[in-house]
């Protein structure tokens, strides 16, 4: 399978995964240093393969909304590290998103909603516009397993299926929503079965295998682009960290996290690429340094920008109505 994937795509996915991983770690530092708010980080390291594999099939003008936990993967959709870090540290001059809320109109990145699932309707609306405006753009809505029970997502599925909208729903199933196991909130074993109730195809994939994510999403995205309507992907992965940093995680069965960390998608993909000679060890080291340097540089650039001030925010809102 991997043989058929163009080399530049294999490399792009690798770069995106590494960038994501390094950004997740960098966010921690940033929070500690006070350069972003002292928010409680919701870490997503170990879950990169889902966003990265999908984005390898998306164009700049497609739409996507990701989860707060995978905001570190947004460069895969084209958003620059500079913009990610400027947003994260409240210096993005376009708006005051930050924290978990990213936006990039140019790259079709739809803001995340703190009321979970409501953003899936927004993404579905983008898909509707894509269709009504006679483009072949598609939209992707990625949401967590627990979020997957939100009524707004079912409403999105109702619209998407009745109107054959070009949208791919993706459950990032990392097995937990806060302290609640996915087994407790669903009566279906295979989460992609949810699609059956609405009349479109669904498929469960190993969400820690970027190549499988890539292949399955490729087929669904092409199908949607051709006007054949929505699909659902349930991507099985694992939340390696607490819901937020510092939370006790008593709900986890012993050994579970250890088992899953063996399936970490980054080393796994690295090995595949090495085995195939798509990359050499020195390529990898070089890339590591390159990305780290880019992150440093981008952060320095961000620091050169003014942080949002309350007066500016008020002004930015044009006028109190």
């Amino acid at each position, binding site marked *: 399978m991997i043989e058929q994937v163009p080399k530049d795509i294999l490399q792009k996915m690798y770069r995106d995964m590494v960038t994501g991983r390094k950004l997740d770690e960098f966010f921690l530092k940033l929070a500690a240093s006070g350069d972003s708010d002292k928010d409680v980080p919701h870490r997503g390291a170990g879950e990169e393969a889902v966003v990265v594999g999908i984005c390898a099939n998306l164009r700049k003008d497609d739409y996507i909304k990701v989860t707060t936990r995978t905001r570190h993967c947004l460069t895969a959709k084209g958003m620059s590290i500079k913009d990610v870090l400027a947003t994260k540290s409240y210096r993005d001059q376009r708006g005051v998103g930050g924290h978990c809320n990213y936006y990039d109109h140019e790259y079709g990145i739809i803001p995340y909603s*703190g009321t979970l699932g409501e953003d899936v309707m927004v993404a579905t609306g983008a898909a509707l516009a894509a269709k*009504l405006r006679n483009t072949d753009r598609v939209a992707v809505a990625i949401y967590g397993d627990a979020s997957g029970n939100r009524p707004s997502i079912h409403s999105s599925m109702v619209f998407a299926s009745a109107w054959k909208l070009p949208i791919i729903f993706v459950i990032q199933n990392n097995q937990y929503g806060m302290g609640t196991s996915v087994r407790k909130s669903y009566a279906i074993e295979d989460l992609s079965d949810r699609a059956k109730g609405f009349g479109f195809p669904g498929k469960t994939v190993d969400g820690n295998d970027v190549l499988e994510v890539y292949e399955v999403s490729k087929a669904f995205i092409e199908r949607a682009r051709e006007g054949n309507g929505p699909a659902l992907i349930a991507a099985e992965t694992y939340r390696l960290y607490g819901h937020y940093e510092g939370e006790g995680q008593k709900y986890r069965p012993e050994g579970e996290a250890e088992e899953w960390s063996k399936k970490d998608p980054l080393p796994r993909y690295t090995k595949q690429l090495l085995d195939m000679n798509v990359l050499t060890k020195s390529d990898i080291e070089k890339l590591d340094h390159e990305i780290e340097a880019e992150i440093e540089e981008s952060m320095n650039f961000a620091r050169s920008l003014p942080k949002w001030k309350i007066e500016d925010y008020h002004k930015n809102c044009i006028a109190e109505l």
Partner: protein
Amino acid sequence: MAANQSVTYVEAINQAIKEEMRRDEDIAVWGVDVIGDFEVTTTLGILEEFGEHRIMDTPITEEGIVGLAAGAAFAGLRPIVTLMHASFVPLALDALFLKLGCNYQEWGYAFQLPVVVMTPVSSGIGMGADLALSPEALVVHSPGLKVVMPSTPYDAKGLLKTCIRDDYPVIFMPHLGLYNDNKQEIPADEYTIPLGKADIKRKGADITIVTYSRMVLTALEASNRLSEEGIEAEVIDLRSLVPLDIDMIAASVKKTGRLIIVHEAYKRGGFAGEILFRLIEKAPELIKTLKHDIKRLTAPNISLPHTAYLEKQMIPQVEDIFRTVKEMF
């Protein structure tokens, strides 16, 4: 200039939508049963003229109707979406409040969000508790939402056209009870009415009645009866609640020395309180010069029942306004 034409309220709304759709190809309409011919329909003939890419019947999913509009606007459309009754505002309130009202503010108007949510108030006409809510207080509380509630065909058309041209979200709430009752002469030529300008529907020197939507008609009727008793009421039709024309209210109250606010919505937490506070902020000295204390007439803090004849009695009547105003003299 073309001659005037005589239209109903619902025809005025229909004209506004069609005229704007002719002007701008990005406008699309969706909502529950917007194509067929029902008592609530404002969008007859759009399918025939513009085709099925411009108007769509949706599944009954109010949350989705509004939520999708936010995304479609993000992606370049200018949606006009309907909720069949304004009572459905609570069903879609997250989308209205956070997606339409708040989010684009945060993003610094970096993108436009041209959405009109059109939803008729169906209060006081025997629809029963669940369909009879006048929910303006719920959307007025949201940052970033404009709220428009016209009382006449002329206003409905001119205001709606302005709403459709606005690059940011507007909640447009006509009143179902007005759809077919009152024909009015309106210009055949194009016109628009700016938001934030109230309208004096009746001039008077003795008391200011501030109201909006269907209650304007009730207030006018009461005013005619009051006039027979020698009391000349000034009836201010707010037309838009957000932005609010507090200047006009203050000027009128300064002149008359008396103020009563009338609305169909439930009293507690209704819009009357906001008007009052804005007035005090605008003209703090005014309140001490009043000839009578300020009153409000509203639905009581009791559920409107599924009983047409009772429900109607719970909304301010001509008689209620007449009596209450008389007591203020």
